[in-house]
């Protein structure tokens, strides 16, 4: 992809999304629905990859940001009744952006105090923040508490899901593939050397957290309007873990690999459905075997410096 064509890619993706959503009634609604899951997971994985992969942080709290986005967007759209497509589009995009913005705010809150911490300590603290966010929603009776919140509108369709995924991919790729963005990798590779070269590691880390959390929030909004019912329990720590799995399996700091891993890990359980109770057993075994066979990430082919 030449840099001149980056925006063309984005526009093309949006156009494709629009065409498919117009023709939605010709597609099998189950598989179409799976594409929303795929797109949502792609957004989550690609945005977490900015934090964990490119910047070398280790966040285990992505589901928390997702929850903030999901609840925010749902509360906003629930204020509206049935709307014509254009009004619905305007409200929905506003709600998604608001969800992303609030999640980004949460990312800022989490990002700043965690900067002193590294590695496993950072992982456990972000996990803690994610769990605290979940417990807070569990105690917010205004949004249903533990009983969950019904989302009035099922507005997530192929256009929104695919478009948002394309936007997330574009933003992360564009950020990283610039002189500015080499700073993320520099912070990951060697924080001391990076700061000796005038790079402010704090700023890069916080930026990664904020941008990553923003897209997790957008993904949460899409999720809410796709499933039409959200509970705090849906954003638990296993959800965060499954996003981390996508990033590591795809290859840390490898956007294309991470996208493919997100697609694979969303489709795999669907294809395994016929074996029912054995499905999760096989899935977990596959996880171990894939990792043993390709520790550098399934889709990492060139030699990269091992992420620390």
């Amino acid at each position, binding site marked *: 992809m030449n840099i001149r064509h980056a925006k063309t890619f984005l526009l093309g993706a949006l156009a494709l999304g629009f065409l498919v959503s117009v023709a939605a009634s010709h597609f099998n609604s*189950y*598989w179409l*629905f799976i594409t929303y899951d795929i797109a949502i997971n792609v957004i989550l994985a690609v945005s977490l990859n900015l934090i964990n992969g490119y910047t070398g942080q280790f966040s285990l709290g992505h589901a928390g940001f997702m929850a903030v986005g999901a609840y925010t967007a749902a509360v906003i759209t629930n204020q509206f009744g049935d709307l014509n497509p254009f009004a619905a589009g305007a409200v929905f995009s506003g709600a998604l952006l608001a969800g992303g913005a609030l999640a980004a705010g949460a990312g800022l809150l989490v990002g700043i105090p965690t900067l002193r911490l590294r590695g496993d300590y950072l992982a456990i603290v972000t996990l803690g923040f994610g769990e605290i966010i979940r417990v807070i929603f569990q105690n917010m009776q205004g949004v249903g508490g533990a009983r*969950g919140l019904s989302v009035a509108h099922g507005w997530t369709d192929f256009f929104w899901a695919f478009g948002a995924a394309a936007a997330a991919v574009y933003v992360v790729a564009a950020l990283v*593939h610039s002189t500015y963005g080499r700073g993320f990798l520099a912070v990951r590779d060697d924080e001391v050397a990076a700061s000796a070269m005038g790079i402010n590691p704090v700023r890069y880390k916080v930026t990664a957290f904020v941008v990553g959390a923003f897209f997790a929030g957008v993904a949460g909004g899409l999720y809410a309007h796709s499933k*039409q019912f959200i509970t705090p329990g*849906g954003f638990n720590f296993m959800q965060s873990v499954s996003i981390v799995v996508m990033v590591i399996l795809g290859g840390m700091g490898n956007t294309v690999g991470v996208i493919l891993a997100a697609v694979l890990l969303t489709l795999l359980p669907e294809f395994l*459905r016929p074996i029912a109770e054995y499905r*999760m057993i096989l899935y977990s075994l596959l996880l171990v075997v894939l990792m043993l066979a390709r520790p550098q990430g399934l889709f990492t082919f060139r030699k990269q410096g091992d992420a620390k």
Partner: protein
Amino acid sequence: MQKFLAPIQHARGISLIAAATTLFLTVFLTGCDKPASTPGAATGPIKVGEFASMTGSEATFGQSSHEGTLLAVDHLNAAGGVLGRKMELLMEDDQSQAGQPATVVRKLIARDGVVAVLGEVASSRSLEAAPICQQSQIPMISPSSTNPKVTAVGDYIFRVCFIDPFQGTVMANFARHTLHLKKVAVLTDVKSDYSLGLAKFFKEGFIADGGAIVAEQNYSSGDKDFSAQLTALKAVNPDGIFVPGYYTEVGLIALQARQLGLNVPLLGGDGWESSSLIPIGGVSLEGSYFSTHYSPEDTSAAVQDFVKAFRAKYNETPNAMAALGYDSAMILADAMKRAGTTDGAKVRDALAATKDFQGVTGKITMDADRNASKPAVILAIRDGQFKYVETVSP
């Protein structure tokens, strides 16, 4: 210099993804949804979908419910099927995970072409599936989701269990008038909407009856240690404790309450009913009461046949979840027979008209809100067994 600015690997990757997307779209997405009911083709089995938590944190409930449903389908097919066709149950596991029900119910409807959907135990997961069934005009029957919101989603959504207001009030009346309790404490499972709903209506009913709620404490399903909450409850000296939770926790709660010297009766709802309750709680449960749908000791033929068949098939005593799962399939079959077709709208109408259907869990009549109206049974735990106390009609 351009090549430094955007690594060439990126280009290949993007085209790879574009190609994969196109392939995916053409291979999987094309082909409209399977028509749910083809009135002309009245041959082959009737496909009924079920979604249940067969794995994950609430697998024990989902598995019980599924066992009951499966037994019902066996019975129906052994008796010649429905409308002269076999009934085929297509079960999908939702892993007790939020987000999954929406996916699996879409699969059942769009890919497998089921004519009706059964499920789920947990209201939060039924609420995810309900809008989809409603939109596709496929009748959905929840065996044991008690949150009133579930059937409020639309006129295609039914349930065979009672809802929280009825059961909560029944236990409140029983505690106040039969047991003559004055001060009751409530211990709620805040992770479960079932528990929250039951607690709410119990409290309202008990206060309306002139009793007092002296303390409220919470736990989360999956907890094992309740000593902190029970110690706090003990400090206020209640006459009884209402524990509207599931049997998975109630046994331990009883055990720990007695260990702390808290010897007042415990009260609960249908979530208690399971053959694994008493082994865990043991003598600590003596003198406790709970409301439920049926008693395995009920001498009526419907119940005894069910219990016998269930024991024969699974080698265990059916719990409330299994009985409700059984009834959900039976009531669907009954409606199909009366409608004379598997067409969604007509089955819906027949379901709504269900009156005095003799299920395992009592005589069921669908009310205007598509909730089952049926009597509740109150059981006591004495000598390590469930003992019938009384029946309360709505």
